[in-house]
């Protein structure tokens, strides 16, 4: 795996592709996100890490407007999600892809139909074209031969690759990944990380919650460390992990002690 040259992500000159401004979210009377801001330039790959309950997943869902933030706004290419209003929120979500920890493939559809259905129903692509596109996306994740199988007939790693193909078929401007490998058996993690690395090399803008620091450190532009609903540290992975005093470095070394993950 080769990293992208430091400091000059593509498209850095223009306005950010995605800008989350002062996001606040309260769930069940508890403040989960406390005035969080984060932005991504086109082609950037950033990672969110932090202890569980720190608000990482909630932040992803708020960026996607799957959860409507209680305060703040998300701008995608300068267009405000808040100003779009309730009616157009579906159009906003369509521009962003989400990969879930437990895949969330549609159980009643084959791999190919899982990829094709949003093209057909949401983008109104004719059936034949949607199917052809779906096959193309499955090929890209190495699953063309599994197109006719149902989710229950696929391994965890295969399911997650189908879900990546499903999100990619919608040509999202931004991809959000919520612990995409943490529900997988260790031997299946590699195949999914490979697909994600390929997306990164292809210039996909991505924000990922992960504990796979070994994978992330060579590939991402920035690590954001979250705790208690705030981003308390952010920086280039080499810089953050090299500084023994950083919260990120202590967290990661404890993580690798516990799990043996690098």
């Amino acid at each position, binding site marked *: 795996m080769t990293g992208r040259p430091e400091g000059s992500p593509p498209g850095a000159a223009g306005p950010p592709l995605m800008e989350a401004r002062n996001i606040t979210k309260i769930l069940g009377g508890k403040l989960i996100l406390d005035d969080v801001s984060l932005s991504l330039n086109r082609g950037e790959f950033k990672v969110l890490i932090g202890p569980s309950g720190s608000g990482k997943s909630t932040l992803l869902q708020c960026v*996607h407007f799957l959860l409507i933030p209680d305060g703040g706004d998300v701008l995608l290419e300068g267009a405000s999600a808040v100003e779009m209003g309730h009616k157009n929120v579906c159009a906003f*979500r369509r521009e962003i892809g989400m990969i879930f920890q437990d895949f*969330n493939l549609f159980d*009643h559809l084959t791999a190919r139909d899982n990829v094709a259905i949003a093209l057909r129903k949401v983008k109104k692509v004719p059936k034949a074209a949607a199917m052809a596109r779906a096959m193309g996306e499955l090929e890209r994740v190495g699953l063309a031969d599994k197109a006719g199988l149902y989710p229950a007939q696929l391994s965890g790693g295969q399911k997650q690759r189908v879900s990546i193909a499903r999100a990619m078929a919608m040509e999202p401007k931004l991809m959000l990944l919520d612990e995409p490998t943490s529900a997988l058996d260790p031997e299946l993690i590699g195949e999914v990380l490979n697909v994600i690395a390929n997306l990164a090399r292809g210039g996909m803008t991505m924000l990922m919650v992960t504990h796979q620091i070994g994978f992330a450190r060579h590939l991402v532009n920035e690590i954001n460390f979250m705790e208690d609903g705030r981003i308390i540290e952010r920086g280039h992975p080499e810089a953050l992990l090299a500084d023994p005093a950083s919260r990120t470095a202590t967290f990661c070394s404890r993580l690798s002690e516990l799990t043996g993950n690098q």
Partner: protein
Amino acid sequence: MDTWEFYTEKLIPALNEGLWMSVLIIVPSAALGVLIGVLAGAGRAAGPPWLRRVLDLYVSVFRGTPLVVQLTMWYYGLPGVSRFLGSILGPMGLPEFTWRFLVLSPYVASVVAFTLCSGAYQSEYIRGAILSIRKGQFQAAKSLGFTDSQTFWSITAPVAMRRALHGCGNEIIYLIKYSSLALLVTIQELTGKSNALASFYFRPLECYLLTALYYLALVSLATFFLRWLENRLRVPGMGMAKTG
């Protein structure tokens, strides 16, 4: 009259007529019952709170009272309501149909009673099926930009249909048998015919035994159709083993 002649000349022709009447009651009641069940079940699972309360009330009334009572109310009870309405609306100069429509024919009363009772039970299966769909399925649909109605038609309906099929089929099989209650409102369906013949010729054993076989055949036919439908809709890993 010897036994063979009794069968071929009397019993079987009469039961065939009754069978036809039964089918005329069962098919529309089952179809409308499923329709009402789907609407009421979807409303109870995902509707606004006021709608849920209304539909919950419907289900608790129709599941909570004996079908015999419901059926006789539709047929024998409503004319009383009609007379009362007529005594008010008539002097007001309103045309007769504004109260006469409450006087139902035996056939209409049966279909209405069976449909509403069946629909109440069906809605329970549909509601359960919708509520059993994992939240992640909806989240995935949302994240792909599905609107609520696109999610309903592409995800909720096809999954719920498969989950509810067992229960709904079971209810249709019940309906086939409780359609025999129509004899209480003077309908000469299978059981009604059989009843009349049994007492006229005083041969209850043969009459009821053969009637039972007719019902068994109807239920077997329905079971066969439901199995065929299940296998057609079968999706690996969705909890429906291949049968038949």
